[in-house]
């Protein structure tokens, strides 16, 4: 229980901390310390187990399918890192209390800091690789927010994004690597993975997995060539730099190498990839650090260099080197965190971090200066300080490295060179800041010592540097042992934590480094001049321009493809359909099936010819829009005739009535549209479209031919047999519509209703200016309502209504039905609108079409739901034959009520749609009465 507690308490704290923001910085700092204190207390009891190389486990199921569990695992290595995170974290909290200004969003800062802390603890305490990855990416995210804490600064935003891109991207690689490892091992549990080192290393995918994991580690730990993000992350407030970029987050990559050391290390690939990366990073970081005028920039590059050192140590692959690496992790964390804090104090007190301005601070803040000088000495590797010890171990290990090809001299040389640079930049940090004349143009002058408590964290860390440096075995021995044991996954080689191992080669290297470093610093101007000959690359600007370039490229690429051309999208759709259909169709041998062709019936053939002629004429003459519509009407008419010719009276009637309404609709619309379509597409484009059209048409011809000539049997026999006994009607099509497949019809009238309501809504606020006359220059006539039309339309109404009743009532048994009847009624009313106008007609129709639609749908639904009462499913119909005197025997069918719903919906929808368009007319007096919403 205590392990998850350690990880999750900071997150709880992050939620709670901002609540204390009202109480001021002190309150919130205290509140923020609580999780760490509890965590420390919770870890303490495990020390006995860990010191002996044991591990503590706590596991809870989460997502077994994924192999993801809430698995926590504490061993020496985890403990070491947890302590670093918790203890330095506490110091940072204290430090930040004074660093931040009261006006800043302190609550957010502490919340983020705690989130980060929790994530970091999560990484080190995870017993499951996937869980670790989750925390890993969380540190990327929280550090993104912390770096950009001052997000009004452009540099902060850019630095943050760069850090996120690099570390988050590396995290994705790590994810892939971990998944591969999980694939190989069959588990993500750390225990299993660590035990399966041989399996992993002998697997074919090991190089891939290793590369991916190392990509994750290298990006996080700012290894060359991914190191560039770290210096720019220094835009963060100093407590963040001190915490994340010296002690914790950047160590996550190193931690990962240590953690997976037993599983991945010990192969040639590991050796070459890790050690050479480390070597390059070590040198480059150290070299650049020398030339940074920014105090934090210097520290950042030095951090890069030290991370390279640790990486190099892990890469060497010897057990002693690994121990040295772990040791240096501790040492670097202590001296670098204190240096960052010192830098923050200086920044805080002088208002700048530029070493060309900051000079001679010894006079103003001797206390701080002393602390910083001790820490810097440790960084330089001065004896009696902790940095010296691990550096000596490093030098010693570098001598052990037997590179093939006579390159054995390379590691010691690199180590010494890096040592020289380290001494030089440490010297610069001390001399250039605290001595070297007088301050130049400090924004805050005179600087003085910071608040007392701001120095305490630095003091504690510096004290640790000294303690470890002077009494290593006593102060850090047990912890280092436990951590090393855990790292190596077994016995730790003999090593001796003493101040001095006697006069040996490593010591000589140290001496050389000191002499060389001091010499270099004294001759710094020459080096600066030399360095100044190279143009300095601003990685942030490069990153930013790369991103902009990428974004721009993506934008242009997208814009070129997704260019807003309906025709292109339609073309793609047509091409897709043709492509997928052609593949199977092209394998068909013959397109005339077993049944063969039936003899030609000449009148039908001529009608077909008329249709084909008019369709083609429509396509050719589509620019003359009115003519196109006339031709289109002929096509529609012939289609209706075809339905009649081939045994579908209901369809013929439906097609005819729809045709009429469609013509009116198109005429209504054409009024507002240009009467002529201009020439726009190029000849090539027309040719392309023609080819597509011909292929599509040819394909459909062949498909139809193949289909029509194949024998066929369908489920329809059932409908023919059950229409009368089961559905109570002899018009099978109608019975299918209102009964067998009544649910389709319900959907269909819903579509109609929605379309009408949508049209109404869409046109409500639309204003269209119609042309003043037709395309040929004739102004419109004033005669809106011709006398004859008006007079003849009126007697048409009752007659047409009667016809519609007739067609409605017979529908169940003979061709007809609600839909057609509805259209007849609609057309009868439309004639009135055309003949006598909106106002006149609307006055005489006392209903709202919305309500007619609603009523229609309601009738259909209620008719369908009536069967619920009898325990039958929705739309179960019932019918009976009733005998009344005089009237005689007649049929009553519930399906008729359903059909009535269809009838009403059709009327409401058709009229609502047409009237909505009619209302657009500037002559229309009806301007949507109560329409102001």
């Amino acid at each position, binding site marked *: 229980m205590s392990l998850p507690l350690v990880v999750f308490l900071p997150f709880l704290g992050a939620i709670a901390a901002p609540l204390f923001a009202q109480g001021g910085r002190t309150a919130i700092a205290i509140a923020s310390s609580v999780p760490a204190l509890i965590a420390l207390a919770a870890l303490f009891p495990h020390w006995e187990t860990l010191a002996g190389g044991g591990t503590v486990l706590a596991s809870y199921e989460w997502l077994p399918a994924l192999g993801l569990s809430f698995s926590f695992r504490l061993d020496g290595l985890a403990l070491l890192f947890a302590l670093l995170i918790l203890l330095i974290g506490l110091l940072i909290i204290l430090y930040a209390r004074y660093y931040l200004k009261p006006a800043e969003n302190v609550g957010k800062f502490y919340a983020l800091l705690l989130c980060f802390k929790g994530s970091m603890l999560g990484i080190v305490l995870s017993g499951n690789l996937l869980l670790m990855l989750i925390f890993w990416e969380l540190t990327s995210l929280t550090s993104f927010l912390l770096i950009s804490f001052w997000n009004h600064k452009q540099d902060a935003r850019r630095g943050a994004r760069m850090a996120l891109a690099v570390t988050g991207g590396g995290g994705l690689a790590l994810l892939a690597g971990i998944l591969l490892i999980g694939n190989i091992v069959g588990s993500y549990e750390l225990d299993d993975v660590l035990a399966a080192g041989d399996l992993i290393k002998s697997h074919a995918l090991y190089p891939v997995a290793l590369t991916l994991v190392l990509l994750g580690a290298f990006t996080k730990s700012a290894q060359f060539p991914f190191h560039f993000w770290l210096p720019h992350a220094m835009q963060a407030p100093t407590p963040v730099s001190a915490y994340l970029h010296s002690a914790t987050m950047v160590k996550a990559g190193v931690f990962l190498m240590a953690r997976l050391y037993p599983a991945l290390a010990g192969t040639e690939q590991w050796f070459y990839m890790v050690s050479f990366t480390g070597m390059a990073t070590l040198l480059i970081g150290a070299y650049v650090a020398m030339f940074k005028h920014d105090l934090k920039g210097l520290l950042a590059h030095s951090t890069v260099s030290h991370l390279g050192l640790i990486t190099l140590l892990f890469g060497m692959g010897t057990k002693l080197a690994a121990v040295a690496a772990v040791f240096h992790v501790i040492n670097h964390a202590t001296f670098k965190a204190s240096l960052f804090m010192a830098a923050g104090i200086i920044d805080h007190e002088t208002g700048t971090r530029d070493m060309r301005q900051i000079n001679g601070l010894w006079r103003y803040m001797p206390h701080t200066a002393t602390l910083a000088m001790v820490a810097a000495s440790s960084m330089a590797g001065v004896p009696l300080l902790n940095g010296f010890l691990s550096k000596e171990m490093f030098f010693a290990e570098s001598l052990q490295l037997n590179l093939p090809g006579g390159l054995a001299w390379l590691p010691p040389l690199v180590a010494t060179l890096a040592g020289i640079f380290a001494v030089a930049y440490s010297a610069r940090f001390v001399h250039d800041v605290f001595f070297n004349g007088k301050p130049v143009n400090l924004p805050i002058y005179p600087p003085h010592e910071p608040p007392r408590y701001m120095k305490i964290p630095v003091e504690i860390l510096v004290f640790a540097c000294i303690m470890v440096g002077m009494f290593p075995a006593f102060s850090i021995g047990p912890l280092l042992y436990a951590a090393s044991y855990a790292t190596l996954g077994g016995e730790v080689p003999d090593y001796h934590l003493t101040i001095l191992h006697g006069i040996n080669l490593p010591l000589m290297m140290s001496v050389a480094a000191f002499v060389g470093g001091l010499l270099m610093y004294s001759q710094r101007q020459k080096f600066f001049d030399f360095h100044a000959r190279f143009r300095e690359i601003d990685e942030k600007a490069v990153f930013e321009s790369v991103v902009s370039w990428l974004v721009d490229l993506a934008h242009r690429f997208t814009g070129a493809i997704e260019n807003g051309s309906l025709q292109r999208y339609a073309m793609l759709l047509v091409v897709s359909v043709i492509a997928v259909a052609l593949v199977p169709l092209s394998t068909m041998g013959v397109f005339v099936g077993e049944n063969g062709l039936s003899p030609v019936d000449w009148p039908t053939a001529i009608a077909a010819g008329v249709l084909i002629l008019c369709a083609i004429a429509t396509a050719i003459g589509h620019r003359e829009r009115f003519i196109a519509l006339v031709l289109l009407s002929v096509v529609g008419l012939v289609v209706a005739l075809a339905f009649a010719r081939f045994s579908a009276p209901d369809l013929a009637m439906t097609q005819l009535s729809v045709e009429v309404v469609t013509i009116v609709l198109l005429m209504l619309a054409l009024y507002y549209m240009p009467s002529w379509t201009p020439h726009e597409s190029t000849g090539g484009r027309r040719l392309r479209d023609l080819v597509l059209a011909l292929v599509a048409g040819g394909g459909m011809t062949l498909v139809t031919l193949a289909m029509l000539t194949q024998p066929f049997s369908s489920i329809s026999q059932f409908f023919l047999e059950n229409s009368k006994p089961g559905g109570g009607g002899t018009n099978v099509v109608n019975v299918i519509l209102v009964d067998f497949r009544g649910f389709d019809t319900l959907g269909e009238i819903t579509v109609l209703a929605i379309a009408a309501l949508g049209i109404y809504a869409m046109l409500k606020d639309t204003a269209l200016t119609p042309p003043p006359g037709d395309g040929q220059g004739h102004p419109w*006539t004033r005669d809106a309502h011709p006398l004859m039309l008006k007079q003849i339309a009126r007697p048409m109404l009752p007659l047409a209504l009667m016809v519609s009743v007739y067609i409605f009532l017979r529908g169940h048994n003979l061709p007809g039905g609600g839909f057609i009847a509805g259209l007849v009624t609609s057309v009868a009313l439309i004639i009135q609108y055309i003949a006598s106008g909106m106002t006149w007609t609307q006055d005489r129709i006392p209903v709202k079409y919305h309500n007619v639609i609603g009523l229609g749908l309601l009738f259909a639904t209620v008719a369908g739901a009536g069967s619920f009462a009898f325990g039958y499913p929705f739309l179960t119909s019932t019918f009976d034959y009733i005998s009344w005197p005089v009237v005689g025997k007649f049929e009553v069918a519930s399906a008729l009520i359903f059909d009535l719903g269809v009838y009403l919906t059709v009327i409401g929808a058709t009229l609502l749609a047409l009237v909505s368009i009619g209302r657009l007319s500037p002559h229309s007096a009806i301007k949507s009465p109560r329409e102001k919403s």
Partner: protein
Amino acid sequence: MNPFAEYLIAALLLLGGAFSLIGALGLARLPDFFTRLHGPTKATTLGVGAIVVSSVLYFSSLGEGIGISEILITVFLFLTAPVSANMLAKAAMHIGVKTTDDTRGNPWEQ
């Protein structure tokens, strides 16, 4: 079937077909829009009337009861054909469709 009815039906059918054809001929070959308007309004309408009547007779003589509902077709046609003609004539006058040179009098414009 009664031979008289048979002849009558056949005659009506042929009459109807002939009128439809003549109406169409008129539409095809008369010189201007207004003269062409006469074909469909009269000949074609009557042609359909004749065919419909023959249909009535045919189904009645088959003993399927008196199917007079077809008569409604003719009624509606007679009701609507003049309106169509009127509307089209008005449209043609509005547009200023050319009349044949032989035409006396002028279409007016309101």
